[in-house]
């Protein structure tokens, strides 16, 4: 019998910095602050950390972090590609490392100054060689343009409307209004604000786009056995998956047979195959929301509804607290902070500890997903 990752490891510590449009500290300092906060939350001394994982887009590397926090000998480190598609895989890689004895205390993190820093799409020089030659010259410049193209087709094919996208934006904003750490705390959204907002890439308006945030988050992963001795209630990593589907093309998934069936579908098949429960048993979900249309696409991909039903799933308050599937209970990338989806991981942990600012009563299972539209990853967490 092969080793299984199922419940073999747990997240025992979470940490974060403040989230703001502009923070004075460097990305490196923010990373260290989030990591030390997560270790303190777990009750584990930084000298015990022997594994790191982050995104390839993370600019503070593990050498700098290990030195700064005073880690001991590090025996495992990895970086995950594809921007926001990497978030959950950082936890997955550390879970695999810990479960197979390559390390004992893993730290995953993301630190980013996207609020005050440059916008990645402005650096067109690096994007112009393949595959940019097929898209950039025509003015498909930004992620919002690339996803807007899929959104328009999705709306055309399934009768989805801007009201459906508003349902997504509203659910995230309502949760942020309950979360003092969120950038959109005490800043309500109305349907009128949404419908009259300026367009960014029609059919996507301002409120269909995630925030621009400075901030950092981290979490700590140890074996299930060790987790029992930690300061906090363990949140078990039940199932993990990455997804790079056949003939996929990152962000512009236009060149396969079925552009509206993205990496979520691939990750989901593996995720559920390894799990003891299915979508119907998920109490709360943290679904990557760089753009509102990613929610209906992900709801379909992860099996919460059928193909083409993701938009209508959002009706009747389904995504709100008390609804069929509360999502992004800290406010998500749309309204809490956009730190490449890492806040969704920590929010999932908060829900299963029972300490979320928008707590789903007795939540025992949580799906966390990474960016749909790029090679992605997902984790199922269990109390």
């Amino acid at each position, binding site marked *: 019998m092969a080793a299984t990752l199922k419940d073999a490891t747990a997240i025992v510590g979470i940490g974060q910095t403040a989230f703001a449009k502009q923070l004075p500290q460097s990305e490196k300092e923010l990373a260290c602050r989030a990591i030390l906060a997560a270790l303190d939350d777990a009750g584990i001394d930084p000298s015990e950390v022997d594994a790191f994982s982050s995104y390839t887009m993370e600019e503070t590397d593990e050498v700098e972090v290990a030195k700064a926090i005073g880690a001991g000998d590090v025996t495992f480190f990895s970086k995950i590609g594809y921007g926001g598609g990497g978030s959950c895989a950082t936890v997955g890689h550390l879970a695999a490392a810990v479960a197979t004895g390559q390390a004992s205390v893993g730290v995953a993190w993301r630190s980013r100054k996207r609020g005050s820093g440059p916008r990645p799409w402005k650096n067109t020089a690096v994007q112009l060689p393949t595959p940019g030659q*097929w898209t950039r010259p025509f003015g498909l410049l930004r992620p919002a343009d690339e996803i807007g*193209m899929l959104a328009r087709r999705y709306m055309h094919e399934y009768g989805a409307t801007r009201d459906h996208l508003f349902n997504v934006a509203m659910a995230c904003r309502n949760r942020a209004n309950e979360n003092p750490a969120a950038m959109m705390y005490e800043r309500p959204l109305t349907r009128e604000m949404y419908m009259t907002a300026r367009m960014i890439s029609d059919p996507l308006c301002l409120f269909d786009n995630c925030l621009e945030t400075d901030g950092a988050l981290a979490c700590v992963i140890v074996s299930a056995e060790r987790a029992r001795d930690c300061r906090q209630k363990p949140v078990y990593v039940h199932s993990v998956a990455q997804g790079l589907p056949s003939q996929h093309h990152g962000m512009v998934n236009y060149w396969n047979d079925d552009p509206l069936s993205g990496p979520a579908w691939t990750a989901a098949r593996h995720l559920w195959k390894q799990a003891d429960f299915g979508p119907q048993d998920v109490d709360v979900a943290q679904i990557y929301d760089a753009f509102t249309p990613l929610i209906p696409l992900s709801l379909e991909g992860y099996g919460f509804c059928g193909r083409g039903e993701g938009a209508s799933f959002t009706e009747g308050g389904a995504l709100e607290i008390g609804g069929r599937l509360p999502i992004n209970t800290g406010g998500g990338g749309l309204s809490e902070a956009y730190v490449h989806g890492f806040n969704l991981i920590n929010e999932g942990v908060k829900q299963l500890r029972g300490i979320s600012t928008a707590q789903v009563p007795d939540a025992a299972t949580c799906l966390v997903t990474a960016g749909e539209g790029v090679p992605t990853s997902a984790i199922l967490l269990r109390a």
Partner: protein
Amino acid sequence: MTTTTTTGTTADELLLPVPDGDGAPFWEYAAQGELRIQACAAPTCGKLRFPPRPCCPHCRSFDSEWRLMSGRGRIWSYVQPHPPLLPAYAAQAPYNVILVELADAPQIRLVGNLVTSADAPLDSMDPARLRIGARVQVVFTETGGMAVPRWVLEKS
């Protein structure tokens, strides 16, 4: 062949394609006013593929050829970008970006712009005429020493 080539357009500071080794033939054919798509040259396969790459994902043959397309297609989807954008694009915003599904090869989709004529600006087409399913045909505009495909509504 229903394509036309127009020469002499002044570079308008829009981004120019930077071809790689696999994509270079596309741009070389475009310079001759031809829309050609890479196809597997194995006799038992012959499947089209885009974007170009070294080998065939169906039969793994490294032999390829560039097949002439009719240049006709339909709009599969479109967006209308608004600022903030790079300056040259912001100057023409809101413009359209369309995704064209080729009539000859429905799984081959090209990103482009719907314009009123080959050398017209990116925002020349009335947005009200943008429609998924609209029939379009390719034209080429020469800019910065390259021929870049653009799309016009097909004459009925």
